[in-house]
C-alpha cells in the first residue's frame, strides 16, 4: 500500500501505555499524585559538587537509584520509562510482532556523561578511545540500547529538537504508525542533569536561584530538571483487537521553527501560534474543540508572555476560558523530556478529569492575563488537550491528545 493510500485511510494512533522518571516521582501514578497535589521536586542538587556552579537547585530524579554498573544515567532513565510504558500497556515480549514495533527517542544532551570520557581522552592524547564513550557521542546509541533491551526490531530512530524534543518524538512516531511503517512505537524524550549540561544552561542565564513561577509578574527564569517521559503509541485497531486500555488518541501534531533567533522567541509568539495551528490542522480540529492547554510555561520572562500572546492569536476570546497550566512550576524544565512528561500529564488529565495547578503563582502579570490554574488543581471533564513546547534554536512542537469515544 502506498503512503498516499495509507494517509487517506488514516490509521488512528492511540496511547496505551506511559512511563515516567522525574523529580516528583519515578512512576506514572507517583508523578500524577504529586503534580495534582501541587508538590515541588526542586531541591539542592547532590549528585555532583555544585558549590562552584552558578545555580545549585534543580529537579534531580530523587527516587531513582543510579545504575551500579556504569550504564549511562540518561539512557537508564529512557529505558526505565520505556519499560514502565510497556508494562502499563500490558505488552509482554510475546504479545507483539517485534518487526512492527519501534522507538523514537529525543534528547538535548543524550548520554553526554558517558561521552565526555572521549573528550578527556583526546585532550590527554590517550588512544584508543573508550568504545562506550565514543558510541555515546551519537544520540542513536540510547535508542538502540533501549530497543535492544525491549526486543523492538521495527524503526528505531532519534531526534533532537532542543526542548521541543519530546513532543517531536511523539509526533514523528505517530506518523510512522499512521503511514503504515510500524504498528506500535515507544516515543518520548530523556535527559539527565550532568555537569556539562548544568554549566551550559547556567551560563545562558535562563535559570533562577528563586522559585520557578510561570506566568507570574515576578517570575525570574526557569529551573532545569531531569528524567524521561515515554508513551506507547499503537494503531487503534490493533490496540482494540488485543483489548488494550486506550488512554487517549494522538489527534494531531505540528513541529516548526521560529526562524527568528537562537535564544529569543518571536516578539508576539508567532512561531508558537503557528505550531499550535499546525497541530489543529493536522488533527482536523478547530480551536473551539480544545478544552485545556498544557503550556510550555518555563517561567522565563519572554516565554510566558509570548506564549500567552500566541494562545490569544489562536484561540481569540476563548483564550480566557481555557484552563492553561505549567507543571514546570512543580517538576522544573525536564529539557528534552519536558514536553513528553507534560504529554503524560495531558493524557492523565483526560483520563481523570483533573487539571494540575501552576504553583508558586502570586502576582498577576498584565501581559499574562489568562487562566493559569493558580496553585490548586481543578476538576473538570476534558476531552482534548493541546500540549505545547519550544526550545533553543527556535524549535517548537505541539501535540493534541483527544478522548477516545
Amino acid at each position, binding site marked *: *500500500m*502506498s*503512503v*498516499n493510500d495509507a*494517509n487517506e485511510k488514516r490509521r488512528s494512533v492511540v496511547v496505551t501505555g506511559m512511563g515516567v522518571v522525574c523529580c516528583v516521582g519515578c512512576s506514572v501514578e507517583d508523578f500524577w499524585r504529586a503534580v495534582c497535589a501541587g508538590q515541588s521536586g526542586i531541591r539542592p542538587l547532590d549528585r555532583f559538587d555544585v558549590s562552584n556552579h552558578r545555580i545549585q537547585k534543580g529537579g534531580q530524579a530523587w527516587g531513582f537509584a543510579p545504575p551500579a554498573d556504569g550504564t549511562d544515567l540518561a539512557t537508564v532513565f529512557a529505558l526505565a520509562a520505556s519499560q514502565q510504558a510497556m508494562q502499563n500497556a500490558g505488552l509482554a515480549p510475546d504479545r507483539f510482532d517485534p*518487526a512492527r514495533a519501534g522507538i523514537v527517542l529525543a534528547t538535548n544532551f543524550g548520554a553526554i556523561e558517558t561521552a565526555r570520557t572521549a*573528550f578527556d581522552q*583526546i*585532550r590527554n592524547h590517550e*588512544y*584508543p*578511545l*573508550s*568504545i562506550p*564513550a*565514543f*558510541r555515546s*557521542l*551519537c*544520540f*542513536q546509541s540510547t*535508542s*538502540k540500547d533501549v*530497543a535492544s533491551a525491549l526486543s523492538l*526490531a*521495527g*524503526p*528505531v*530512530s*532519534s*531526534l*533532537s*529538537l*532542543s526542548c521541543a524534543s519530546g513532543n517531536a518524538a511523539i509526533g*514523528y512516531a505517530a*506518523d510512522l504508525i499512521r*503511514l503504515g*511503517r*510500524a504498528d506500535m512505537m515507544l516515543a518520548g524524550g530523556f535527559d539527565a542533569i550532568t555537569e*556539562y549540561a548544568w554549566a*551550559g*544552561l*547556567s*551560563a*545562558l*542565564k535562563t535559570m533562577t536561584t528563586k522559585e520557578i513561577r510561570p506566568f507570574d509578574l515576578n517570575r525570574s527564569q526557569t529551573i532545569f530538571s531531569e528524567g524521561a517521559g515515554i508513551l506507547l503509541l499503537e494503531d487503534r485497531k490493533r490496540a482494540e483487537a488485543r483489548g488494550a486500555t486506550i488512554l487517549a488518541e494522538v489527534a494531531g501534531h*505540528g513541529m*516548526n*521553527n*521560529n*526562524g527568528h533567533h537562537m*535564544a529569543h522567541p518571536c516578539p508576539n509568539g508567532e512561531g508558537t501560534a*503557528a505550531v499550535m495551528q*499546525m497541530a489543529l490542522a*493536522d488533527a482536523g480540529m478547530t480551536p473551539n474543540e480544545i478544552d485545556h492547554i498544557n503550556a510550555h510555561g518555563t517561567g522565563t520572562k519572554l516565554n510566558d508572555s509570548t506564549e500567552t500572546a500566541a494562545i490569544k492569536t489562536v484561540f481569540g476570546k476563548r483564550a480566557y476560558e481555557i484552563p492553561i497550566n505549567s507543571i514546570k512550576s512543580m517538576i522544573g524544565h525536564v529539557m528534552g523530556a519536558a514536553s513528553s512528561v507534560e504529554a503524560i500529564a495531558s493524557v492523565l488529565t483526560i483520563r481523570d478529569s483533573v487539571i494540575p495547578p501552576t504553583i508558586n503563582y502570586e502576582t498577576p502579570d498584565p501581559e499574562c492575563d489568562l487562566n493559569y490554574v493558580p496553585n490548586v488543581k481543578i476538576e473538570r471533564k476534558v476531552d482534548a488537550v493541546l500540549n505545547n513546547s519550544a*526550545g*533553543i*534554536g*527556535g*524549535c517548537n512542537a505541539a501535540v493534541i491528545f483527544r478522548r477516545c469515544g
Partner: protein
Amino acid sequence: MMAERIVISGVGPVSAIGIGWEHFANAVRDGLCGIGDVTAFDVDGCRNQQAGEIIELDVDGYLATEKNYLDRNSELAFAAAKLAFDDAGFHPSEAATDRFGLCLGTAYGNVDTQRSFYDLLIEKGPKFVSPFLFPHTYSNTSASLLAIEYSIRGVHANFCSGSAAGAEAILYAFDSLRLGRADVMLAGGAESLSEVVFKGLDSAGDERIPGEGAALMLLEPERSAKARSAPIRGIIAGAGAGGSVDAAKGLALADAGILEKRIDVEFGPDQAIDRMVGHTTGASGALAVAGALAVIDKGCFALVNTCEPGGVCVSIVLERD
C-alpha cells in the same frame, strides 16, 4: 485521486569529490575518489590515516549574513543549503515561510563545539564556560541556524539516527509535502570530520573510511518546480522506513507502486558513494541520493538503501522522466 508528484528540484552536494551539483555529478559519473591522508588533525597511532576530507571550503561564499562563529558541521550545512537553492533557481525570501520547511540529518551534530565547550568546563570551571559557545553545541544548531538565516518557519525536524539520518530527513520531508503540511522542503544531511569521531571509529575497529560532507536538496510538487523552470534532478517515486533493509525496501517499492525488477540502479552508501567520499554517517544517505540522481538515466528507477544497523533503515525510490 492521483497525488501530485514530488520532485527534487535542486541539489547542493558538498563532498571530497566535488562541491556543487555539476562538479559532484561529474565526479560521481567519472568514479572519482576523494579519499586521502587526513590533514585536519594528528592521526599518529591510528590504524587508518585516511578520510574523505574537504580540503578547500570557502564558507563565506555561502553565507547570506556575516557569522562570528560556526561549527564545521554548520558550515557544511550552510554551503549545501545555498548550493541547493541556487541549483533550484529558488529564492527563499520569496517563499511563504510557514509553508517552507527543513529536515536535517546529522549523527554527531556539532561535536567539535561540544568538545571545545567541555574543554572550557574542565580547564576554567563551570562559572567560566562560554554562554556564546553553548548554543552552538546542540545537535539541532545547524538546522536552527539555517531556519533563522532563511526564515524557514514551516515543518522542522532534526534526525540523529546515525547513518540513516540524512535519508530519514529526506523521507520525512517527502511525507510532509504529501501530507499537505508544507509546500516546499529543504532536506538532507550534514556531517563534519571530527577528531573524536574519527578516532572513535578507528578505536572501534570500524573498517569504513570516514568522510565529511553534506547534501541538501529542495523538494516540492512538480508543478511549482516547473513553474520556476527548475532543472528537475529527479522524482521521488516512493519511500519507506523500517527496522531492516528488507522492510524499508518493501515499503518503498509498494509506496512507488513498482516491483523490484523495475529498479535499474542501486546506489546506497555501502554500494557506491562511500568509496568516493568516505562514510559521511548522517550525510551519507543524502549524498547517496545525490549520487543516484547523477547516474540515473531518463526513464529509469534508482533505489537508495540506507541502514543504521540495529536502528532504522530507509529506502528511497528515485525516478527520472
